[in-house]
């Protein structure tokens, strides 16, 4: 599952109306306040209602379910307090799930940022067919993750796949992508990177086009090499873009589902089971809805913590133009 960032609530022009300049006669002031309140309710109400209905209510209910032992589909449930959390933190599988999640997230986010920047720098040049190249680079992002996964399964097939044929051409035997660890994890990382590279490149490209040409020219006049210009001029100015991508890509990666579901189903032997996929497996395969909800709550807190750390420490180093 990829993250879908809805427009942040409260962002935009909804602003508390300015207080009247001087104490007005009571009735007129009250009428103005009521009008302002009515406008606020009218404009913000639908958005808030949707957020409450589809985000906060399920969140609360998910936490409630996490205190139950409930077999999905069963008409009865049993209250177990924090038992599901205790079980999760003491389970043998937890360390492996967290390790897999960390490896997957760090490599996909790091890889996407580095490769995406490189691709953006390439696409920023005045080359023939640049428009087509940009479209081609971005196209995988709009494809269904499930379909992408199925397609790449054929490519990775150790016996019949394109990858196997290419490797054979170099005299290298194909790894057993489906069955031998750590290849299944490598496989889904490659596919996830391929799918999201275009998105990262596009955002970086927009950032690059916001870098003033006169600064680059000034650096060139000062004798800075292209590498030095990139390092000392372009990258600092891209810091807000990098920060935005870091936050959004990390959220998306931690919630990744479709590629894993279509390619490995978390296997073999749980070697591609991330925390997100564990929640699905426990809830919908094993039917342990309470335990899965505990996992969802833990993932929620993890995402909140990661985002808070990024905001608290990394944003200090970001310079907005």
């Amino acid at each position, binding site marked *: 599952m990829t993250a879908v960032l809805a427009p*942040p609530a409260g*962002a935009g022009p909804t602003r508390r109306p300015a207080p009247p300049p001087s104490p007005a006669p009571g009735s007129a002031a009250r009428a103005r306040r009521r009008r302002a309140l009515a406008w606020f309710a009218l404009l913000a109400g639908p958005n808030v209602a949707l957020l409450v209905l589809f985000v906060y209510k*399920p969140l609360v209910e998910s936490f409630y379910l996490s205190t139950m032992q409930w077999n999905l589909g069963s008409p009865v449930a*049993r*209250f177990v307090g924090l038992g599901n959390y205790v079980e999760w933190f003491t389970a043998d599988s937890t360390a492996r799930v967290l390790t897999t999640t960390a490896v997957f997230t760090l490599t996909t986010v790091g890889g996407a940022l580095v490769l995406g920047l490189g691709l953006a720098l390439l696409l920023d040049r005045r080359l023939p067919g640049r428009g087509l190249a940009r479209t081609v680079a971005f196209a995988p992002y709009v494809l269904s993750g499930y379909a992408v996964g199925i397609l790449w399964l054929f490519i990775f097939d150790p016996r019949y796949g394109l990858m196997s044929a290419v490797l054979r051409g170099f005299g290298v035997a194909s790894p057993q992508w489906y069955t031998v660890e750590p290849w299944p994890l490598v496989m889904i990382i490659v596919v996830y990177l391929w799918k999201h590279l275009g998105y990262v490149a596009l955002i970086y490209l927009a950032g690059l086009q916001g870098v003033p040409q006169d600064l680059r020219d000034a650096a060139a006049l000062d004798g800075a090499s292209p590498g030095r210009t990139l390092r000392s001029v372009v990258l600092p100015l891209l810091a807000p873009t990098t920060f935005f991508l870091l936050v959004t890509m990390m959220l998306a990666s931690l919630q990744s589902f479709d590629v894993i579901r279509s390619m490995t189903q978390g296997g073999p032997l749980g070697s591609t089971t991330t925390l997100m996929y564990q929640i699905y497996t426990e809830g919908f*395969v094993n039917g342990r809805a309470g335990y*899965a909800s505990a996992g969802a709550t833990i993932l*929620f807190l993890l995402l*909140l913590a990661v985002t808070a750390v990024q905001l608290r420490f990394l*944003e200090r180093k970001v310079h907005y133009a």
Partner: protein
Amino acid sequence: MSHRSHRRRSLAASALVAVGALGLAACTTPTIATGDAAETAASDAVDWSSVEPASQITWWSNHPGSSKAVEEELIARFEEAHPEIDVELVTAGANYDEVAQRFQAASQTSELPDVVISSDVWWFRYHLNDQILALDDVLEHLDGDTDDFVSAFYADYEYEGQHWAVPYARSTPLFYYNKDKWAAAGLPDRGPETWAELQEWSTSLTAQVPADSKPLGMSTGPSWSAWWFENMIWGHGGQYSDEWTTTLDAPEAVAGGQFLHDLFHGDAAYATVSEDSTADFAAGVVAATIGSTGSLKGILDAASFEVGTAFLPDGPDGGGVPTGGTGLAIPASKTPEEQLAAAMFLQFITSTEQTAYFSQNTGYMPVRTSAIESPEMTAVYEATPQFRTAVDQLSAKARSQDWIRVFVPSADQILTEGIEQIVLRGTDPATAWGSIAPKIETAYRENVEPYL
């Protein structure tokens, strides 16, 4: 508000929205009655004679054995016989597990089908959750000749004196072999009677497959490997469980696991893991495989060589073959009108003529004895003797599956984990079984025991 501060709040809000979606994904919003599981009320008996069937019903299927066109034909025949009832066929998943997951997820909603695929490892969970209807009364009302069902198949859905599904796409594992490679290896035109015999034959078969392959190709995965492995563990005198008691620590069960280990990792290993063993078999990459009878038609169509079918080999303590596949169930929460229409549909597509038609076009076994003996199937058996093997194996070797695999929710997945440890990692069987036995016991304690 400063630009920086505004941006920070926007990002924080975005993060909150994104992670909040988890709550939505994690679960629906059911009404949960807390209390003793045993307190769940049984549905009131329905006087079916006073019920008029609904005019439209929905069927959730995964089209087992690539049978979508066959199922559409069955629906067309039903609608011709019962023009007052329309049936909508919904592809609810790519396999039994996906249909079941969708059914479970929909259980707290009004978006349930009227007929649903209910595989051997899922129907009992539906029953435990009071999700499906006991069919005995409604089938009796419809004069359904349930005595004509193959008794082993119909009995699979019996619990506490009632039947919770009817057999539909029923199968057993079957031993498939490539007759060309068999002949080239100088072997008799038959399957091996024992695993020991296949071990002897494997030396000559190895020369008939590519250098990076092995004579026997096997796939693993949920709803699959724990099914065929029953033949091996039974062949060594073991079993997954004795009724509800897990018996994986018994020496016989460990011996079965050791046999599996040596099949893939022993000095004379002759099996390889295939992502899709039937595809590898049809492509000639392996000389033999174990596949479902439901794959028979697909294999016969895909293979460019003559395909042989045989019983699963015996082990040193005999053997046996598990029955499997899927039945059809009716959700308990539907209206009596919808349930009656659904029952009429079940009765129709499992009738003698229709089950024979389904069998001819998929390889799944006819679920009625009258169909097995029908002129249509007799003609099929004469023209394509491979179809006959499964029926003969059923009467000669069939054995009810071990309880924990089919009755304990998620036990099939847990057993698969143990089997994959042995097959993919070469884990010592005692260690592999020891790592999964507590999980099965927990699943039983949480999801079965309170409901018995």
